[in-house]
């Protein structure tokens, strides 16, 4: 379905009637000497665009919220971090204001997560789990879910990296996708653009699939 973005007018929103909103969250923190501090912003934005285009219902894709909770990096150059209760308030406000406009389904793309992660406990931005849970309990008629793209694409990512004789590692996946999206931003290392292209593709497909399956399952409950 066509995606509504911040480039549309309010009148186009009224005509397009988005039924689901995608809220991408990133983090801004040092990623070593070879990757930009804003790596997660670039990657989750690309994944969110792909996911929005694959959803069955008309979607409102929000711009990426650029900072998460990176307390473990606080004080290191390039780190801009929120406190947990601040990110909780941000997610709460965004989701509630979307719901006030009649959008029932809200999908929080909670940064990239880890290929070793799962759909029960987030890797990074852990408060988002609590925020989403409380929003659902406290807001009648809302269905908010959270997902981390690397966690739901673990199997496919493992295959891509195994076929190149490499272990699966979040930093390697990020570097590869970035080399595909913006080659000049990867300073050094063995990241491979083709591996990155495939990784982005499977991350988008697995995330869209997880979102559709989860929303469909909630319909049955």
């Amino acid at each position, binding site marked *: 379905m066509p995606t*509504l*973005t*911040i*480039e*549309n*007018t*309010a*009148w*186009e*929103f*009224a005509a397009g009637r988005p039924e689901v909103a995608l809220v991408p969250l990133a983090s*801004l*923190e*040092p*990623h*070593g*000497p*070879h*990757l*930009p*501090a*804003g790596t997660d*912003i*670039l990657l989750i934005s690309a994944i969110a665009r792909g996911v929005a285009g694959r959803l069955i219902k008309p979607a*409102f894709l*929000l*711009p*990426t*919220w*650029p*900072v998460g909770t990176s307390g473990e990096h*606080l*004080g*290191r*150059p*390039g*780190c*801009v*971090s*929120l*406190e947990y*209760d*601040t990110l909780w*308030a*941000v997610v*709460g*406000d*965004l989701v509630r*204001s*979307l719901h*006030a*406009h009649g959008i029932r389904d809200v999908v929080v793309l909670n940064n990239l997560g880890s290929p070793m992660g799962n759909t029960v406990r987030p890797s990074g931005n852990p408060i988002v789990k609590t925020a989403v849970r409380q929003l659902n309990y406290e807001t009648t008629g809302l269905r908010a879910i959270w997902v981390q793209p690397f966690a739901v694409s673990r199997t496919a990512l493992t295959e891509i990296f195994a076929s190149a004789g490499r272990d699966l590692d979040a930093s390697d996946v990020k570097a590869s996708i970035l080399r595909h999206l*913006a080659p000049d*931003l990867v*300073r050094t290392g063995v990241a491979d653009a083709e591996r990155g292209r495939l990784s982005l593709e499977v991350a988008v497909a697995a995330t869209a699939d997880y979102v559709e399956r989860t929303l469909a399952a909630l319909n049955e409950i």
Partner: protein
Amino acid sequence: MLDDTATGPEIGAAAPEVAVLGIGAIEQHGRHLPVGTDFLLAIELSRHVATELDAWLLPPIPVSMSECHGPMGGTVWLKPATLAAVLRDIARSVEAQGVRLLLVLNCHGGNFILEPAIEQLNRELRWLRVVLAPEVLADLPGEPPIFETGALEVHAGEAETSAMLHYYPDLVREERHDGPITVGREFLDYTTLDRLNPEGTWGFPSRADAAKGERAARARVRACAAYARRALEAIPLVPGPAGSSA
């Protein structure tokens, strides 16, 4: 200029003295402008000002206090306390890296929490000073007037539409409805904009053009950069934290 494409070590080596934070909004802007207008203008303004100052450009905050547009589609908002907390955490993060001045460029007129939040932050922070560049919606003091209706502009009018025609001409639609609202701007403390004008404008977008937008954009970038330079000079000479460039 550093932005989020710089690595941590590159930012560490540059030890930026000034960080620039644009604040945008996502809210209805009439039939002719996209809901992301304030965010898009925050992206442009903050990048140009940070370049002028050779500063650290932080990613602009996309969403802020837009509840005053009520039920109009595509509008999302933060509560005032949330916006204040976001600003506080960002200020603490850059202070921890030795930044001396955080320049806030507000691109959404409804963010009235910023002034009190910044005043409080400056009492609490140790090394960093946070300053809000004067909000210039239309004409600049000391500059020849650019807009015919500058004093009447509140939302999606001549100045804002001109700015978009300059930076993002492809995103400006043809159908422009003027909003000649006669009550004071404080009425947004009492009601939402759709009740004052269902077309969602407050000002005269029909008078906008790209040339005015370009003149105003240049003047605004210059004014914000000059303000930051004066603020930096005015910061009392307190010793910076160990290891910082201050």
